[in-house]
């Protein structure tokens, strides 16, 4: 475990924890963005450049902005402010700790954790592109179709509303 990993891990965990704990919704999104960026940095530390940069582009550049816009469109300052912590946090904590312990036990006792890691091949972006365009071209096309359908759907919804107001 290197120092960089430790710093990034603390940053990611602190960011996501703050996203759950903070009261102000916009602050939560900003803290969550820190968490996203931390995860991206962890990918980069593992030499996964493509995944790391895509994480920044999609989550920091798009999802965070989307969340912020959604909050600004729907949030009203007069809404009832619920406390951030539920009264049943003891039970919640016990359940969370139990799940964590079961998962940790399962991982530690499985055979995968004792095996030596195989040497990691170095994957560059070109190989990912080749794989996407040759072997996995059908899933890629289906994803593209799905996203196009979603895009057209969004436009249609927006258009309908415009005609109503006329």
């Amino acid at each position, binding site marked *: 475990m290197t120092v960089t990993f430790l710093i990034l891990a603390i940053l990611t965990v602190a960011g996501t924890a703050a996203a759950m704990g903070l009261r*102000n919704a*916009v*602050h939560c999104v*900003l803290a969550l*963005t820190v968490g996203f960026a931390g995860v991206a940095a962890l990918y980069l530390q593992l030499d996964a*450049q*493509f995944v790391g*940069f*895509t994480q*920044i*582009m999609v989550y*920091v*550049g*798009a999802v*965070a*902005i989307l969340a*912020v*816009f959604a909050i*600004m469109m729907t949030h009203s300052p007069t809404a009832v402010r619920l406390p951030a912590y539920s009264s049943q946090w003891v039970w919640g904590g016990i359940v969370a700790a139990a799940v964590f312990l079961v998962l940790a036990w399962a991982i530690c006792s499985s055979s995968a954790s004792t095996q030596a890691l195989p040497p990691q091949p170095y994957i*560059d*972006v*070109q190989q990912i592109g080749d794989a996407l365009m040759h072997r996995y071209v059908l899933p890629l096309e289906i994803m593209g179709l799905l996203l196009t359908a979603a895009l057209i759907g969004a436009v249609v919804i927006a258009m309908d509303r415009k005609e109503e107001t006329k």
Partner: protein
Amino acid sequence: MIHTLDQIFVLAKLWLLGYFPVGAQPLASAILSVIPILIAFPLLFAITTWLERKGLGRMQNRYGPNRTGPFGLLQPIADAIKSLTKEDIVPLTADHLVHFLAPLVLVAAAFLAYAVLPIGRNMVLVNMNAGVLFFFAIGSTVELSVFMAGWSSRSKYSLLGAMRAVAQMISYEVPMVLATIVIIMQAGSLSTVTIVEKQAGYTGIFPHWFVFTPWGFVGFVLFMIAATAESNRSPFDLPEGESEIIAGYYIEYSGFKFALFFLGEYLGMFATSGLAITLFLGGWSAPFSFLTWIPSYAWFFAKLLALIGAFIWIRGTLPRLRMDQLMNLAWQYILPMALINMLVAGVWHFMPLGPFRWLVCTALLAVPCVLLGHALKRKKKFQVRTYQFVE
């Protein structure tokens, strides 16, 4: 001799590195590479503010700054002293932490983009094999800092400005990336260094820059339009329209934080111009084969200054677009053209060499360009403008 002059900064860095102990050399190497970037580009920012004010002044029939130093050359220093000594005012209701962080995030993101720009031969900070992707990933974090600035100020004007800026940046990021894809298709790499290498070499005296192909030219024009919009410059300066929302998202900033916003904006503009140079204008290579004796970094900065000049010229010439015009331009004209351009780049790749290829590809681009323009024009009814609240 020519080679030494070309590599003088690389050699100087290696010479300085020799004075460091072996264990500290990787860190020292990184720091020695970063410092010139941290000096050169803010210096260029200072020069550009002077150039811009002088250039705009001349275009508007006035002098521009002419009181500080010869030709007003010391104006940037005066501006810096002024902004450093000004009181830093933070609105009482502002979100202090976010308000403080926003300009820092903006400037940090703007500087990070320079990591993948090859400024000269062997002069790139990191040669990543996903360099272009890195550039766009970093560029997308700028939107977040703009939003942070607009929201944390708790002012309606700044929030409006931030909303406009984010909407505009997201809309124009799509055509910008699509305009870049033709280059990546042709170069077969996302690394900025490889893309520059692919454009090296000359036919006769003319270089093999991507801008000198039909798809490269169209890509360059689309990229520059999108780059102008991304850097919130006129004619796309709605987010900071002085006459409508005063200064947009940084209206509540004063003193040095305000200067940081300006710095971040100009650094972003230089970085996108640098990427345009890398992708379309052959990076640091000379425009003619008989001029290769001039050092590579000089060519990079010459091209950068030329693009900055074009930006200033456009700012002095064109009026501001309206919000619907801005969005229509992006989604109805630039986006379809970028998609057609991608198709043409594919056709170009698979056609045999020769003038026939030129003819087909130029026709494939020129015809949709004209038809699209006519179709969009026909949809609009042009008539004498009537005003609702005047008369």
